[in-house]
């Protein structure tokens, strides 16, 4: 039976971790590779790097991070942030990434997803969906440019389009919950998981193991992504997986 994945996310800026984990035994708390190795040892099922480098000049740093991570972590590694084209994706995959998450570029031109899927296969193409509830409560809109621009596009419609265009997975982030640590937006998750046949990663809002459990049990997520609960060291990846398993969710343990 396929297991639910726990995916720690590391925000990387100019090759350094911005929002990382506070493991006291790390020599360099800002080194993404050392943190990736710590998560690997802790039993993470997959890793996600989010490159929040603002400048074009700094983009090369993430390639070095990916390449060095692939030297020591033999687990699936995804990377997102600033991916505009199939050529950007190719560089990341050749550096050692297994998946490339595409956000703004795919919303503006969904054919980017098709170009990547044709070249590298749908299994490595993740459509990142940043969604925020509409004021009238009628649903959710897609926001781009790191959550700064409301596109007016309906999130459920976009997710279905992204899959039709070649995305093999959806990374679904609730902009309302991101950083709030009040739990995933279960209504949003259910709307998207009910609309697409590919795996959906829940993101944005996890503050406890109960939130991770709810994301899977109530939101029907196939994987749960979290940053801050692991970052602050309150819960280890192993503890999270054990709690999810105890709640009856199929997990890879040990």
């Amino acid at each position, binding site marked *: 039976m396929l297991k639910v*994945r726990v995916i720690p996310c590391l925000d990387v800026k100019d090759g350094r971790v911005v929002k990382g984990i506070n493991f006291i035994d790390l020599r360099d708390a800002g080194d993404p590779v050392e943190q990736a190795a710590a998560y690997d040892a802790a039993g993470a099922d997959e890793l996600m790097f989010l490159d929040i480098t603002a400048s074009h000049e700094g983009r090369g740093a993430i390639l070095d991070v990916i390449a060095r991570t692939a030297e020591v972590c033999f687990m699936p590694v995804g990377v997102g942030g600033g991916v505009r084209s199939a050529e950007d994706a190719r560089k990341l995959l050749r550096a050692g990434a297994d998946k490339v998450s595409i956000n703004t570029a795919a919303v503006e031109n969904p054919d980017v997803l098709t170009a990547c899927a044709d070249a590298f296969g749908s299994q490595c193409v993740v459509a990142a969906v940043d969604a925020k509830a509409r004021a009238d409560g009628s649903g959710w809109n897609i926001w781009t440019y790191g959550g700064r621009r409301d596109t007016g596009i309906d999130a459920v419609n976009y997710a279905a389009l992204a899959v039709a265009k070649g995305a093999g997975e959806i990374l679904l982030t609730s902009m309302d919950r991101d950083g709030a640590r009040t739990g995933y937006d279960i209504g949003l998750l259910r709307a998207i998981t009910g609309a697409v046949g590919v795996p959906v990663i829940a993101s944005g809002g996890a503050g406890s193991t109960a939130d991770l459990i709810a994301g899977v049990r109530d939101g029907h997520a196939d994987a749960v992504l979290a940053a801050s609960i692991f970052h602050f060291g309150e819960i280890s990846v192993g503890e999270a997986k054990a709690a999810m398993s105890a709640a009856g969710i199929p997990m*890879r343990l040990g």
Partner: protein
Amino acid sequence: MSSVVLIDYGSGNLPSAAKALAVAAGDPARVIVSDDPAVVARADRIVLPGVGAFAACMGALRERDGLVEAMNEAVRSRGAPFLGICVGMQLLATRGLEFAVTQGLDWIGGEVRLLTPSDDSFKIPHMGWNALSGSAHPLLAGLPDQPHMYFTHSYAFYPEDPSTVVASTDHGGTFAAVVARSNVAGVQFHPEKSQANGLKLLTNFLEWKP
């Protein structure tokens, strides 16, 4: 000391496979990354990686002059141990039915078809960690019972001869996770992404004496 040739035909998982093989071999110098038919023809062992579509991968192999012939020479005539990974495993089939019918290497008879789970709660692609159930085989030696491996695929290899399926996995129906016949083997999952279990399987392959 024997070496292993990792065939470089543009597959996306080549760098990860090379690094994992170097760790499994305990010596990076034992891993030769090449698409040179002369190198492949005299290889001690061969690993064929692969991600993406069946037809694209088979096309990339065939467009390298003499490469498929060199693989046949090493693996079929000389008996060099062979491991295909993911689409590299699927290419062992007689044919693939992804998009169009494409002829494979036909080293193990059978077809590559879309996974068709029993109900739509099973997502496609089959993506993530899943357990193997299988019989004893040198490639699985020393692994835990029902080991977890990392899968990411929508198509699977359905061999004609069930005895070539060494281990299977369930995703709303079973499919071949490990196939083997004499010196030819293939794995649907990604050992280079399966942490300790995957590295152990690669070490087993490097020590395999079929």
